[in-house]
C-alpha cells in the first residue's frame, strides 16, 4: 500500500469510505513514533496512549479536510501527527487536572437549558437523516466545505448538491420547529 505523504493527503480528501479507511491505515503506521514520545512524556498506560493517538488522527484528518494542513515538503506527516498526539495528551492532561469550582454552582447552566434541549433534538434529527443528507450537512457545517467543491468531489451536479442541502435543512428545521416556538 502506498503510504507516501502525498498519497495520504489525497486519500483523506477523496470521497468515499474506502479511501478514508486506507488513509487511516497509513496513519496508524505512525503509532510507534507517537508512542515513543508519549512514553517520554510519562504516559505509560498503553490504552490511554492509543486513545490519545486515535484522537490525534481524528484531529489530523479534520485539519486536512478543513484545509488547515499543507505539505511543505520538509515536515513528514508522521512528525506532524506525533506532535498533534503530544498536544492532545497535554490538552487531556490539563482538562483532567482542571479545578471543578464552577460546576459546584447548581444554577450555573440554567440559562443554557433551552439550548441544550435544542441540541438534543438536533442530535436526534441528524441521526434520522439518510446517509447522503448527513454527508452534505457534515461537509457544509463541520468541514466548512464550499458546495461547489463538494459537488465536484462527490461527482454530482452543483444543482443536485444545492437541492440536497436544502432538503436536509428543511428536514432538520421541520423536526426542530415545535421547540423553537
Amino acid at each position, binding site marked *: 500500500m502506498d503510504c507516501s505523504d502525498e498519497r495520504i493527503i489525497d486519500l483523506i480528501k477523496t470521497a468515499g469510505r474506502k479511501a478514508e479507511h486506507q488513509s487511516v491505515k497509513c496513519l496508524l503506521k505512525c503509532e510507534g513514533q507517537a508512542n515513543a514520545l508519549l512514553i517520554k512524556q510519562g504516559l505509560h498506560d498503553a490504552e490511554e496512549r492509543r486513545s490519545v493517538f486515535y484522537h490525534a488522527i481524528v484531529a489530523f484528518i479534520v485539519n486536512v479536510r478543513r484545509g488547515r494542513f499543507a505539505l511543505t515538503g520538509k515536515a513528514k506527516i508522521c512528525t506532524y501527527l506525533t506532535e498533534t498526539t503530544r498536544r492532545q495528551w497535554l490538552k487531556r492532561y490539563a482538562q483532567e487536572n482542571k479545578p471543578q469550582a464552577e460546576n459546584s454552582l447548581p444554577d450555573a447552566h440554567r440559562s443554557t437549558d433551552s439550548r441544550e434541549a435544542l441540541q438534543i433534538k438536533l442530535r436526534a434529527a441528524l441521526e434520522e437523516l439518510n446517509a447522503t443528507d448527513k454527508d452534505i450537512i457534515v461537509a457544509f457545517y463541520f468541514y466548512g466545505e464550499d458546495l461547489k467543491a463538494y459537488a465536484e468531489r462527490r461527482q454530482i451536479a452543483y444543482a443536485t448538491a444545492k437541492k440536497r442541502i436544502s432538503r436536509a435543512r428543511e428536514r432538520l428545521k421541520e423536526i*426542530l420547529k415545535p421547540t423553537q416556538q
Partner: protein
Amino acid sequence: MKPSIETLAMIRDYARGELNEQEMARVEDLLAKQPELQEEVLLAQLLSEETEAMEKQRLLQVIQEADGEAVGATPGVPSNKIVPLWKQPWFRLAAASVLLLLAFGLFWYIGDTPSADRFASFREEAYVAPPVSDAMRSGVSSVDWLSDANQYLQTNQYEQCLSAVESIPPSDSLYLYALLLKGHSHYKMQQYERAIGAFEELLEQPADEPLYFSPNADHIRWSRLLAALAKWEADKTPENRQVIERLLVAFLEQADRTDRYYEEAQQLQRLLN
C-alpha cells in the same frame, strides 16, 4: 424568502467566529435588515457543534475498525460494536438477494418486459465518463498518451482512443487508466463483451498495487454493470439477466453508500423490479 447558499455559508462562518471584522460587519448589517436570519445563526452554531461531535465519533470508529483489522481488538476507545442484525453486511446481502430473486421471479412469472427505451435512457443518464484528471496530474511517463486517449474518447473518436491506449505498456503507472479508457471505448462502440472484459481485467488487479495509479473501484464496477445491462438489452437471455442480478447485488454490497454510483444502482434496482 429562503437564504441563498452564499448567505448560509457566510452565516455559518459568522457563527463559527471565522470572519474578519469587515465580513462580520456585513453579516451583522444583514441580520439587522433581516432579523429572521437570527434563526439561521442559532441553527449554524448548533449544527457546527453537533456535526463536529458526530463526525469525530464516526472517525474514531473508522480508526478503531482499521486498527482492529491490523492488530486485532483494540481497547483504546469505548466500543459501540454491537451491530443490529439488519445492519450486518451478510444479512443485508442475503435480504437484498432474496428481494431481488422474488422481484425477478415475479417479473418472469407475469411475463412483463420493461421497455428497452427505459433502460437505454437510464444508461445514458447513469453513464459516468472515466475520471482521469487526477491520474493525468499524478502520472509521469505516459501522461500525454493518456491525455490524447481521453481527448479522443471525449470527441467520440473511439478507434483513435484504442490506438492511443495501446501505446501505454503494462509496466506504466498509468496502465490501469489505459485499461479504463479501453473499456469505455468498447462500451461506446457497443462492443459490450469487450468492454466487460476490459473492466474485469481492471478489477482483477490487486487492490493498492503500488506500481499503478488506480481508478475508483466503484466507477469500474458501475461501468461494468452498465455494459452488462447494455448486453442484456441487446440479447435478452435469462443468462444475461442473471449476470446483471449478480453484479447488481455485489455492487450494492461493495459500493460506497454515499457516492453517486450507489444512488444510481438503487435506481437501477427499482427499474429492474
